């Protein structure tokens, strides 16, 4: 059609086939926000309710409506939304919310921040690994696929690349964590994790070990090879192929995952494995030596 070089010949029906509806909130974030509302048992806001009023009530309601109108338009009724912030495979990115809360994104991770100016509530949607240091104030809810964390003033680390692989470690204050509909209350030095529906914890965690993850150094204590492989896969964008007999073998130790090959070499040597990286297909195969 474009070859005709004359807009008079444009077919309206075909032209509109190229139209796409814009979006402010991604479908994934919309689901997380919806889940959060359901969990908070929030009712939808009914905007026009028909009520029979007498004049006194009507006058009060009108005055209230005028004030509400001014407040709403003065503060912008919609949530203030920042664009999605992403850290790519090779970087760690620090970010700050408007209230100075710090969020340090680990590799291959993203956050979106939803701040409601009216209520002061703060919602952050995270995918991947991130360390939060939250300034005391209104409640902050961190949403991720498979769960959420509610906090006021605290510091904690979330690993949420996938709903199958979730981990929250708290190293200051306390947090309320929901993982796959199960609720946990974590105080300083406690963590909880879930891998493929199996919850471990609350267990003890050390702040230095948690902070080390931002530097790419991971400490594991009796963690299955398949779980470690999934985490490495998410960090570097690879899929693992592991022989079934090896998947449940546990690994303990400290591994530097700044370089993929370096990390795989340490794990393979400790567990008598050999690995093969296929960069074209983005797969890593692990076999017994």
């Amino acid at each position, binding site marked *: 059609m*474009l070859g005709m*070089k*004359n*807009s*008079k010949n*444009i077919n*309206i*029906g075909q*032209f*509109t*086939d*190229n*139209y*796409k*509806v*814009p*979006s*402010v*909130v991604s*479908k994934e974030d*919309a*689901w997380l*926000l*919806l*889940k959060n*509302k*359901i*969990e908070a048992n*929030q*009712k*939808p*806001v*009914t*905007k*026009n309710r028909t009520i029979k009023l007498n004049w006194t009530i009507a006058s009060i309601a009108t005055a209230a409506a005028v004030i509400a109108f001014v407040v709403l338009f003065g503060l912008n009724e*919609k949530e203030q939304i920042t664009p999605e912030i992403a850290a790519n495979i090779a970087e760690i990115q620090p970010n700050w919310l408007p209230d100075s809360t710090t969020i340090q994104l680990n590799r291959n991770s993203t956050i979106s921040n939803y701040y409601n100016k009216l209520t002061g509530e703060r919602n952050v949607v995270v995918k991947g690994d991130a360390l939060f240091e939250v300034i005391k104030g209104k409640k902050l809810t961190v949403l991720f696929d498979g769960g959420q964390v509610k906090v006021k003033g605290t510091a904690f680390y979330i690993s949420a690349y996938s709903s199958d692989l979730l981990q929250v470690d708290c190293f200051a204050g306390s947090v309320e964590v929901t993982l796959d*509909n199960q609720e946990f209350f974590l105080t300083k030095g406690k963590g909880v994790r879930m891998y493929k529906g199996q919850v471990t914890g609350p267990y003890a965690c050390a702040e230095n070990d948690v902070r080390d993850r931002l530097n790419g150094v991971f400490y594991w204590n009796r963690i299955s090879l398949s779980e470690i492989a999934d985490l490495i896969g998410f960090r570097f964008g690879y899929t693992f192929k592991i022989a079934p007999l090896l998947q449940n073998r546990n690994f303990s130790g400290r591994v530097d995952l700044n370089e993929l090959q370096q990390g795989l070499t340490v794990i393979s040597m400790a567990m008598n494995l050999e690995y093969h990286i296929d960069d074209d297909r983005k797969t890593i195969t692990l076999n017994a030596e």
Partner: protein
Amino acid sequence: MTDTLKGTVWFKEIFDEYYEYIRNYLFYLSGDIGLAEDIAQDVFLKLWENKEKVNDETVKSLLFKIAKNMFLNSHKRKVLDLKFINKRSDNVENESPQYLLELKEFDVRLQRAISNLPDQCRTFFLMNRIDDLKYQEIANNFGISVKAVEKQISKALKILRGQFEHKM
């Protein structure tokens, strides 16, 4: 969530399948994507609250019904200003600047003309063109006959063609 796992899984499936249709429908009605997304959240909350009463076979038409009612009950009619993203702009590298300018002007005028279509004409036409819904599917969503859908979409095309024939 306090509900059973089955309820949550069912709800997620419904959300995954229909969220975009409902959000888009609300956008076609309102012309405001922020509002469309807000009401879409309320629509699914309503569905969640009434999930025990919902018949799986009619859930899609129920969602459209809730969406329409929520929109109509909450918002007065206003002049629409639909602004779509035009995917074509990525594909015009070899065209002349004159033609590209004409296309852009055409695009602006077409979007304005679509905004001015009667509600039902506009929503059915856009659901067919943008959401790729067949006449039968649109008819099912709104509990009307295929003939009625066909009539509204033909009307939309007739109005649009009429406007562009006269003005170009």
